[in-house]
């Protein structure tokens, strides 16, 4: 069985690019869901659990870090790997994301190799 992903980003183009990039990694993929913000992400996750969440930080309604905190509060999502994909790449921001419960951090812009590297790490865990 392949991996199930949820991509959370308010940009439809970035969601499409991440989806296209996941297809280039060679990973076996069962399903890729999409959400437009943190609230949408939590709703989708409750209905269709996934193995890996890839999320932006700056989004309307609920940002990525708040969504990660909510996911980590729920024990049934404990095994989900969360990778943050953001334009902000400072050490300070990465530490904040990890403290919230992120397992990996990918700075935009990124290519397929970087996605594969970070997912290999996340999946190993």
């Amino acid at each position, binding site marked *: 069985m392949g991996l199930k992903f949820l991509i959370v980003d308010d*940009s439809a*183009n970035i969601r499409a690019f991440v989806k296209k990039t996941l297809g280039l990694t060679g990973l076996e993929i069962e399903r890729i869901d999409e959400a437009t913000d943190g609230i949408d992400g939590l709703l989708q996750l409750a209905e269709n659990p996934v193995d890996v969440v890839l999320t932006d930080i700056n989004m309307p309604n609920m940002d990525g870090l708040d969504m990660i905190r909510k996911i980590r509060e729920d024990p049934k999502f404990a095994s989900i790997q969360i990778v943050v994909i953001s334009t*902000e*790449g400072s050490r300070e921001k990465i530490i904040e994301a990890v403290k919230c419960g992120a397992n990996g951090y990918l700075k935009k812009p990124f290519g397929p190799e970087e996605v594969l590297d970070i997912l290999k790490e996340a999946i190993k865990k």
Partner: protein
Amino acid sequence: MSTRDNRIAGNFVVESMNELLEKMAFVNIEPREPYWTGDFIFEKELAGRLFFSGPVSGVFLINCSAQFIREATSNLLGIEGAEVNEEQLFDTLKEFVNMVTGSVLHKMDSEKSLAKLGIPECRNVRVAPFDESAPCEVMVCPFTFYSITDNAEDALFLEIALR
């Protein structure tokens, strides 16, 4: 900023744009010599703008042709240029403004978050110009864009005004 600082800031803008296009949109551009001017340049029809504030505050702007963004969007999404709609064009431009601003600020200091990024805005400036002028002098980083579709040269401008 000193002449040396200006050159470094100009290099950061060029490096950030090159990195973005190499990794995500595969569009062929070549940097030209940066220069300083009193206000933003709106030579092309589309503009994306982002305000940022914090220890470093200012405005970042990309001014480009629809053709440039169409080719970039086509490559980003893996679809034909003719299939790209207006919503996708503006989405790409907003993301480009966001990513280049984030990248330039990161290159200025990789330890701390130097600024909180605002919400990127994007429009056709021939139809609805931005009404605010630059808060201070603007550093303009011009690029030559080589269009594969038209087999022609075009220009785009990355502009940054630090308060």
